[in-house]
Structures are given as C-alpha cells and as structure tokens.
C-alpha cells in the first residue's frame, strides 16, 4: 500500500568525509504538497536534496521516495527515479553550449522518441508556461539571472515530473523576478499535482507559497509547522530566522575545533 507521504526521511545521517552534515533527520512530504526546508547557508540543505536525488547515499537511515529507499536503488531503479524527478539548481545550471530551445528540449530528446515537431510544440508550451515564449533562439549567456532560472524551470518540468526539487530558487534575484518565480512554483505545483521540496533561506517569500515548513540548523530539524504555526511560533530558533537576527541559538560561526584564542596564542581563552 503506498503511503500518504511521497517522500519520507527516516533517521538520516550523512557526512562528507568525516564532517557530519546531517544528524538523524526525519522528514515527511505528503503527496502533492509544496514543502520548504529552511536553514542558513552551509546547514546542509543542498546535501539533503542530493540524498533525495540519489547523488549521495546516507551513511545511516532511509530516504524513501514513493515507498522505495533511494539509498538502496540499483542503476536502473535510480534511472527510473530520476526520470520522474525535476530539479531546479541554485544557479540554473543551464547547458551553456545549447540554446534556450535545446536546453528545454534536452530531457525530451534524451528520454523520448517523439518526433521533432512534437518536441517543438512541447518546448514552446513549457517556455510559455514560464513566460518566456520568444526566447527560444537565445543562448544562456544572453539571459538575465531571473530569465535563466525560469528557463531552467521550464527544462526541469519538461517531462512533467512527479517530484520537483528546488535548490534556493530565490537567491540572487531582484524582487520582481523573485515574485515571478515564487508564483510559478506555486502555480506549477497546483497545476501538475507535483510533490515538491523547496530549499531556501528566504523565509518571507516562502511562507506565502508553501504548505509546510521544516527548519534545519546544525544538521538537525529544529522546528516544523504550517506557515501560520511558524509565524506564530515562540521558538527562539524560528524567531531568529523569521526576524533574520545574526545572534541567537543558531550559530553564525563555523564549528572549529580550535578557538580563535588558540590561534592568537592568548592564554586562558574558552569557547564562546
């Protein structure tokens, strides 16, 4: 019986080399919902998406997508999993040697045997969906940051994925492009019935469009809830995020083994 959750992370821990990035993470994403994962830079958000896309495997725990553990998938299963998944990369990751048209056509040409006329129609439809009809002849270098992100979005949804992963879709965009992208993400999610995870550190924009929020800090889930619950939450963790304060329970400094005092040669210094 398929569970109600399209994605479920159970006790997932992950380390690059020896540095533990994610500790015992538990997450659930219901079918058809848009869920945000928030946390500061370096808190392991991109890593989390990489575990779900199967680029890395956790040292411990299960990453269930539609009931199947990504960490245990063989080559063919991983291939099938990725075909049903779309991912929007932080900086778009458009293929710089291909035109806008060929970028959006890329997954269609690689994974289907559709005739060129049908591919053309589909590509133009997807470009239209992100409001970029007419840009198909341009090269990625000729696009603004916001446009590139939207082309990448069109490419990610080319095969009508069942799961969308968004890695910081708002970074580096002007307020208008940001609003456009947020609206698109929301609209696509509603229209296609896709389950989606959006990783971000932009609290305010995200709270407007998502169904549920997880907060990640220092490798752990520290809070979760609906946008209303988050806005009302008293937790100092959450408040630090929502208000954007530098100081609070979430540490701003890199967790070094040595204190600054050690390197400066000052006696008697302790850890802050």
């Amino acid at each position, binding site marked *: 019986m398929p569970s109600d959750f399209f994605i479920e992370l159970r006790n997932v821990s992950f380390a690059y080399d020896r540095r533990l990035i994610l500790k015992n993470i538990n997450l659930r994403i219901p079918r058809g919902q848009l869920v945000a994962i928030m946390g500061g830079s370096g808190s392991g958000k991109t890593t989390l998406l990489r575990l779900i*896309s199967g*680029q890395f495997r956790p040292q411990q725990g299960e990453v269930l997508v539609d009931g199947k553990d990504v960490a245990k998938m063989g080559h063919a299963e991983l291939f099938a999993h990725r075909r049903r998944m779309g*991912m929007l990369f932080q900086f778009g990751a*458009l293929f710089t040697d291909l035109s806008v048209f060929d970028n959006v056509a890329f997954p269609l040409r690689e994974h289907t045997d559709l005739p060129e006329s049908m591919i053309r129609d589909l590509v133009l439809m997807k470009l239209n969906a992100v409001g970029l009809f007419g840009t198909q002849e341009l090269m990625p270098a000729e696009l603004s940051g916001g446009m590139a992100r939207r082309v990448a979005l069109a490419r990610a949804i080319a095969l009508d994925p069942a799961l969308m992963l968004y890695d910081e879709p708002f970074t580096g965009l002007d307020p208008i492009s940001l609003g456009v992208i947020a609206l698109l993400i929301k609209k696509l999610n509603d229209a296609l019935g896709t389950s989606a995870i959006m990783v971000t550190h932009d609290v305010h924009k995200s709270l407007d469009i998502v169904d549920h929020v997880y907060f990640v800090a220092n490798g752990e889930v520290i809070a979760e809830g609906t946008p209303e619950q988050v806005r009302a939450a008293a937790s100092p963790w959450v408040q630090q995020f929502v208000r954007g304060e530098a100081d609070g329970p979430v540490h701003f400094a890199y967790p070094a083994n040595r204190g600054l005092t050690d390197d400066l040669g000052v006696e008697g210094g302790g850890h802050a």
Partner: protein
Amino acid sequence: MLDFLISPLRKLGHTSINAIWRLGYASRFLISILMYSGQSLMRFSLVIREVYFAGVLSLIIIIVSGLFVGMVLGLQGYNTLARFGSSDALGALVALSLLRELGPVLAALLFASRSGSAMTAEIGLMKTTEQLDAMSVMAVNPVARVVAPRFWAGVISMPVLAALFNVMGIFGGYLVGVVMIGLDAGTYWSQMNNAVDLHFDVVNGLIKSLVFGIAVTLIAVFEGYDATPTAAGVSSATTRTVVTSALVILALDFVLTAFMF
C-alpha cells in the same frame, strides 16, 4: 625532533600515493568511457560536433606549424647534407623525420595545447556550474553524453591532424629545397619515394599519432571531469592537461620508437 627528515618523506609518500591513486582513477575512467561509448557512437552527430571543435578548429595551427617545421627542416637538412655532398637526399630526410617523429609528436603537442586544454576547461566549467550534476539528475549519464563524444572526437582527429601536419611539412621542405634553393624537383620526390616505406614509416607514424590521440584526449577529459569545481581548480586542471600531455607524449614516443624502429 626528526621532523625535518620525516616531513619531506611524508610529503613524498603522500605525493606518490596520490599519483598512483589518480592513475587508477584515470584507468577506471577510461573503462567507463569505453563502456558508455556505444551510446555516443550510435548518436554519431554528437561526435561529429566535437570533431568540429577539437579537430577542425585546430586546422589553422596545424597547417601553419607544419609548413614552418617543414621549411626549417629543409634549411637545416640542406645545410647539413650539402656538407657531405648529398643534398639530393633532402626529400628523404624531410619525409622520414616528419613521418616517423616530428609529425606525430609535434601535432600531438599542438593538439594538447589547443584542443586538450579547451576540453579540460569546458568540462571543468560544466562541472563547476553544476551542468554535469544537472545532467545526471536528469537521468542522463555525463560520461556518455559529454565525455565519450569528446574522447572519440579526439581519437579520430589526432591521426588526421598529424597526417595533415606531415603533408604541410613535406610541402614546406619542397618550398625551401626546390623553390628557394633550387634543388631538382624530380630528385626531391623520387628520393622521398624510394626512402619511405608504407608500412614501416607511414603506418607506424599513424599508429604513434593514434596512441598520442588516445593519451592526450584521455588526460584532457579526465582532468576536466576530475577538476576541483572552482575557478582556480579549472585553471590548474587546464595547466595540468598541457604539462602532463607533453610529458606523456614524449615518454610514449620513446617507448613506441624503441619498439617500432
């Protein structure tokens, strides 16, 4: 206390282990390129496109360099041969030096610095900008889609470029020897015709350039794929491609020559 002794030793060990590890990694990389080559060779348009970038765009530098090397050979060869009264043998000297050594080696060195470095930079940059990640997340294997077509394009282009280099060099020798110095054209060509053996000289030279092509292209795509995904990482990978290729070409040339001639 023995730090001054141990630390360089440790460094040496570390460097050697690293080098061996990378060699192993490169071999595994070659195997996976070969494994995924079927897909890219079936879509030959991908390879053709890369042949254009790796081969066709190298034509100018190969043609010009070949011509000059041939002209220098003509001058130097004539000076030396004339001392022994055998300037008639200029055609043979030019052709043999080019076919056996200079053509394959110099064309490969030029190819490494023109196309090899470009391949490394391109693949490294695709890695840095997450294009390779994007590809594998789209269930498209970057080794099959990006690396293998470039590899085969390099392997195909190299012998052709070397052959062209030879032709231009022989023509350069002709310009200097016959047109400039005034040797007899018939002698130039017939001496060459008599001295050159199809199997021994031409085929062996082609085999050399094929081996160099495999080596240079493998180094180029490997360094790109293995580059640290930062601007500095790509730049040092590009440098490594040119330096390693040059050393490998010269070393392989020695080994091949020892076996062939």
